[in-house]
């Protein structure tokens, strides 16, 4: 194949995988036109029609860290192993041909380069900073081995998914929706029709309702900062920070696809350096850094003297050792040993869990959960009520950005089991609606704040919590009684009580309680099925 074609093929592949990634991301929600073929069977499960976890399976770092930490193979682990195998033969081909985050950086970095001329050459020289990614990889893997898996915080696929799903799309969505609402509420027929029409068109991508996520501003800001780093050094993330890039770099040692250099032909024009994506020292007088090379084939493509050529080595011979650096390695080991311990210092696992830490239905016990959860945000994206949100401090330092339910924003719908069905690593187990009800899978329990409750406090009759309670028989029951009103008269009301045996902690009572800001009935994690100690009743 001619090289010109190979570079073109790379661009096509990059575009295709980025589009496919975004397509699957957008499809990670219940579609509007979903229906069941037979409506008459009870407790059927609604499922997504697309393989939305595909990119998480393709990512060997997610598969590897889950295997090391949670001791279980994720479904579709084979895809990740295939990528590793591919890397063994062809180097970091994933970084330049497949990785959607890499493509984004590639595009941002070359759309309008911030640096020109000699500065462009300089910024593409290899630096010691590129060892940071090995430090991060070591820290993440060691920490995962010791039971705290936060690989997903820095894994490119998880990071990209989280950023786009929780920050970019909701941000654009909220902006556009405020325009449509203004149009839709207008008295002018033309404007209101335009409003509905635009929303119909727009909603399948940006969500059927306003989506908002706790700490999403920080997720979005971090994303912007990471993109901005391309102005300092092209593909800063891929070169310096990406732990997946580091893992693939290690495997590239064995690659049989090598860059052959002909220094005698080189005129030191530096075009190869100007276009190098990985800062992998492509110039013929330098030693090619296989572990840093993204296999973008730019250098050979731009070389006017044919001084560079990629080719398969006939005999297997190891490539140069990746420049990891002792300090990065030792630092990574130290950090990797420290994080799991630091993560337990706040006592969230050993002492008392946070009452607000209500995990999605089917979540594993906390310690096990933290070995698998990648904080990718897929469960949060698919949750139809927007209840599942990233944690801030609820799960302690070790559980930052893991999923939990905020019942004032949404609630867990009684027969919905979508989050577990999409979790890429099984941190949330796939359960069926039938199991969820029959076991039952409890995520917490509700309690009444009688001082705020309308009937209990003598303010007004109300039964909204009981009305919405989905269990049968209801976990919230009513007792007709008289309460004293402010005028001294007795008012007949129905007073709600919670039956903890029946309550599953779904939180719809808290969500629908007419007492706003701080509802009069609230949900806490106590009573969750996944914990043997966080219980109320014997």
């Amino acid at each position: 194949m001619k090289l010109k074609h190979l570079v073109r093929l790379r661009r096509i592949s990059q575009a295709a995988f980025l589009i496919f990634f975004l397509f699957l991301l957008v499809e990670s929600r219940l579609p509007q036109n979903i229906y069941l073929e037979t409506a008459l069977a009870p407790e059927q499960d609604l499922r997504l029609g697309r393989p939305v976890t595909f990119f998480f399976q393709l990512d060997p770092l997610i598969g590897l860290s889950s295997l090391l930490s949670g001791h279980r193979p994720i479904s579709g682990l084979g895809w990740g192993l295939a990528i590793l195998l591919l890397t063994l033969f062809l180097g970091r081909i994933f970084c330049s041909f497949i990785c959607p985050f890499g493509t984004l950086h590639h595009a941002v970095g070359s759309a309008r380069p911030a640096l020109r001329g000699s500065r462009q050459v300089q910024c593409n020289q290899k630096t010691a900073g590129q060892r940071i990614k090995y430090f991060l990889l070591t820290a993440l893997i060691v920490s995962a081995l010791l039971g705290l898996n936060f690989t997903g915080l820095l894994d490119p696929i998880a990071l990209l998914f989280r950023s786009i799903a929780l920050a970019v799309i909701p941000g654009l969505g909220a902006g556009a929706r405020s325009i449509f609402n203004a149009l839709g509420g207008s008295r002018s027929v033309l404007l209101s029709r335009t409003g509905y029409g635009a929303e119909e068109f727009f909603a399948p991508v940006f969500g059927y309702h306003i989506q908002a996520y706790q700490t999403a501003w920080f997720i979005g800001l971090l994303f912007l900062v990471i993109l901005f780093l391309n102005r300092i050094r092209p593909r800063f993330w891929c070169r310096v920070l990406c732990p997946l890039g580091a893992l693939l770099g290690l495997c590239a040692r064995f690659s049989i696809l090598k860059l052959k250099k002909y220094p005698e032909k080189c005129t030191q024009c530096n075009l190869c350096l100007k276009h190098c994506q990985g800062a992998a020292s492509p110039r013929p007088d330098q030693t090619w850094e296989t572990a840093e090379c993204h296999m973008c084939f730019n250098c050979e493509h731009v070389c006017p003297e044919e001084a560079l050529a990629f080719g398969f080595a006939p005999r297997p011979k190891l490539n140069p050792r990746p420049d990891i650096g002792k300090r990065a390695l030792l630092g990574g080991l130290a950090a990797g040993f420290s994080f799991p311990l630091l993560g337990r210092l706040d006592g969230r696992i050993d002492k008392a869990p946070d009452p607000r830490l209500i995990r999605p239905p089917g979540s594993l016990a906390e310690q096990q959960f933290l070995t698998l959860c990648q904080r990718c945000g897929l469960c949060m994206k698919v949750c139809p009520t927007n209840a599942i949100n990233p944690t801030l401090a609820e799960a302690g330092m070790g559980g930052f950005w893991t999923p939990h339910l905020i019942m004032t924003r949404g609630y867990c719908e009684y027969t919905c089991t979508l989050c577990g069905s999409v979790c890429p690593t099984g941190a949330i187990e796939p359960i069926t609606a039938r199991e969820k009800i029959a076991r039952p899978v409890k995520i917490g329990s509700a309690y009444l704040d009688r001082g705020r409750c309308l009937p209990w406090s003598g303010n007004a009759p109300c039964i909204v919590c009981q009305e919405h309670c989905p269990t049968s028989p209801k976990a919230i029951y009513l007792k007709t009684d008289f309460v004293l009103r402010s005028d001294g008269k007795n008012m007949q009301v129905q007073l709600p009580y919670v039956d903890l045996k029946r309550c599953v902690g779904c939180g719809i009572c808290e969500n629908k309680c007419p007492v706003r800001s701080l509802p009069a009935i609230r949900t806490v994690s106590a009573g969750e099925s996944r914990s043997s100690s966080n219980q109320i009743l014997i």
Partner: protein
Amino acid sequence: MMNFNRPLTRRESLRTLFNLSGALTLTGAAVGALKSPLSAWSAPGKKFLVEAVGQVPGYNIKSLTRKAFDAAGGISRFIARGDVVVIKPNLSWARAPQFGATTHPEVLQAVIELCQEAGARRVRIADNTIHDARRCFAVTGAGLVAKNTGAELIHPRSSMMREMDLKGNLLGSWPVFVPLVEADKLINLPVAKHHSLSSLTLGMKNWIGAVDGSRWSLHQDIDESIVDLSRFFKPTVTLIDAIRIMTRNGPSGGSTADVAPKHTLILSDDPVAADAGAAQLFGRRPDQLGFVRLAQKSGLGTYDFSTLDRRRVLL
């Protein structure tokens, strides 16, 4: 000819309704003179209450629905050729049909098909559900019905809620689910079931699913709220699905043990009479329901069965 593509103002809709009802009465009388006595519209001005009961095991729900409408003069008495019909079922909960928490999909399908046979230009299904609308529409079977019949399922969206003056005793400006006020003909298609506050939820209470906003605060004066909403939303007819009724643990249910088969449909052009008729299936006297009493007092209709043209058809 009216322009159906724009919302009606209140005055216009009243005028149209007035014209239409006059025309219909005349047509009804004329047709009645010509046709069989069953479909005759005997007493102009007198409201009707039809109770259709399926007695044969395995009866066809569509035939039962058709019979109910035929007893009231046929569907074309209510739906004219070219109408945009909006059906307001009760699809509040993502519950399978046999739990009786939502309108039976076969009844919904039958009504849609009858409207289409009568020449409706478009049939739309609109409900501002409590559970997530996508899940409600899928699980209750309404999604499948929409797909099979070609009716349009309108998903409640924020851009479809418009602040409108309900002009009620209790309720003033409130966000209203717009498609319900933009219809030529509005059919209220609730399910009959138990409710812990209003004791039953039937036709008039179904309008809580036609508004948005902080509607859970309506429960602080549920009877007045229901009557205010019924004053605002004027359906052409109310058809109450009592094929099976939820007798306890309402309004969401969740167990077939809460459900009793009644094989009944209640059809009326008087919203109060429809609710009163359905209440009897639960063994309740209409005057035991606060909102029914208040609605009659407010002049929205009557639960005095003797003043109604009352019919019972069997299948």
